[in-house]
């Protein structure tokens, strides 16, 4: 079970000019992973996501789902967008239904499911994102920003994807909203074994939630590994316009100063425990 990119290149053409957005990129997403994708603006993250979901076709290379080429004739687009759910940046801008439920049902209905199945999965998805029953028959335009975001997420979740791909799902949310959305994603990941890939510009969020981190630069994957490992490369990340989480930076400075730290700590919680342990104190 995996979603794979093999030697993929992609170009954008505009006004007769051709611009390379992805360069011979290979990548594998297994089942039940939780991945953070980071990279400078313009490094090709959004392009990569659109390829994974079949919205764009690679110019060179292949996209494989469970080893099958998604460009093959016997692979329908519906199957792909049902199995790989893509949530765009500011997904609330795509809401159109007269009521919240109706909007969420759009996706599963497009997949050609039975009406009963459509309804059930819509209700389940709305429950998963924490939209109460009192809001089901409200116009989505009458909701608050955070609620809209969650309804839009439910619209993709209702299609029951195995892989959930999100482009900056936290953009424009307040700290409480960010935490809520992340908790929800974590829950889906743990309880439904959903494989999740999210793009984020916040290294703190990535350190806090992602198990694996993929770093992109100029259309290539330059680093790929466990979050803890990736954030050791402070210099390398800085060279490509990124930084490590504040905590990791703080711990690196401490270590450079001779403070004996063995482990790599990337979240404040870990750092506190680590320092306390070092000083012989018990961790409360």
């Amino acid at each position, binding site marked *: 079970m995996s979603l794979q990119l093999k030697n993929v290149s992609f170009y954008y053409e*505009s006004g007769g000019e051709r611009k390379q957005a992805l360069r011979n990129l290979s990548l594998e997403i297994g089942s039940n992973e939780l991945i953070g994708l980071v990279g400078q603006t313009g490094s090709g993250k959004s392009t990569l996501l*659109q390829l994974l*979901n079949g*919205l764009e076709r690679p110019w060179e290379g292949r996209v494989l789902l469970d080893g099958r080429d998604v460009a093959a004739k016997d692979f329908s687009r*519906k199957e792909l*967008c*049902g199995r790989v*759910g*893509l949530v*765009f940046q500011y*997904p609330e*801008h*795509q*809401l*159109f239904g007269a009521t919240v439920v109706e909007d969420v049902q*759009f*996706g599963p209905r*497009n*997949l050609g499911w039975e009406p009963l199945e459509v309804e059930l999965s819509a209700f389940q998805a709305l429950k998963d994102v924490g939209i109460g029953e009192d809001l089901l028959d409200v116009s989505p*335009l009458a909701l608050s920003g955070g609620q809209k975001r969650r309804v839009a997420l439910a*619209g*993709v979740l209702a*299609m029951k994807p195995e892989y959930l791909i999100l482009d900056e799902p936290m953009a424009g949310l307040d700290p409480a909203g960010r935490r809520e959305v992340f908790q929800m994603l974590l829950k889906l990941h743990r309880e439904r074994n959903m494989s999740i890939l999210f793009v984020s510009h916040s290294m703190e969020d990535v350190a806090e939630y992602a198990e694996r981190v993929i770093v992109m630069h100029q259309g290539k994957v330059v680093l790929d590994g466990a979050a803890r490992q990736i954030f050791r490369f402070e210099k390398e990340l800085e060279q490509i316009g990124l930084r490590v989480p504040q905590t990791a930076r703080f711990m690196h400075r401490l270590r450079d100063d001779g403070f004996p730290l063995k482990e790599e700590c990337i979240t404040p919680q870990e750092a506190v425990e680590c320092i306390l342990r070092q000083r012989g104190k018990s961790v409360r």
Partner: protein
Amino acid sequence: MIRDITIGQYYSVDSTIHRLDPRVKILGTLAYMISLFTFRDFAGYAVAVLFFALVLALSKVPFSYAARGLKPIFILMAFTAFLNLFWTDGTVFFRVGALAVTWEGLYKMIYISLRLILLVLGSSLMTLTTTPNQLTDGLERIFGPLKVFRVPVHEMAMMMSIALRFIPILIEETNRIMKAQTARGADFESGNLLQRLRNMLPLLIPLFVSAIRRATDLALAMDARCYHGGAGRTKMYPLRYRVNDFVAYGCLVAYIVILRAVVWVCPW
């Protein structure tokens, strides 16, 4: 997808024509277009083509670029040419089965096609050398005197420039929403006309919502900066005629005089 549409197809180079006051170009194009309807002689066309060639050369716009404007009207042109060629009475010149081609038909076809081509080329040369903003500025000044009759000239020009400004933004928005809905399994390509129209709803509704949201934001932002219409408002770059503009008006008059003279002297 829709990204490829270009509106206000400005060709960005620096040339004598580009630097002219937009009023000169608007009025000049109008005069040129009217002049094309005042004769049917080939001598006249020779003058009109020559004048166009001269302006084109001065504008530094490549001919192939200017000729792109002809593409959309090609079918219309072919159709009128065809009708004129076969359905004009007169002395028969040759026959293809039941269809007869007359000398008059041939003549009519050529001059009407030429007229159409020059009309399109002339107007596209104006949009190629003038930015949409300059055009609205020019129009606002030309129609300025109508303010006396309480025609909201300034407001109309403002609306036009805002509309032009929003076109590329809305095209991008359309692309984005289209992709988002496609990712949810929407299908914009198959089905009959009615189905397709219904399938457009998930695209159109968010697009309208976003357009209205943007419009409200803009209105608020303008209000917050005390915009209150045209009264007492000055421009950062007011349009002012310079020497070149008067020379251009002179050339225009010269063109019309020469055209009339040539048409009068040569009777073909």
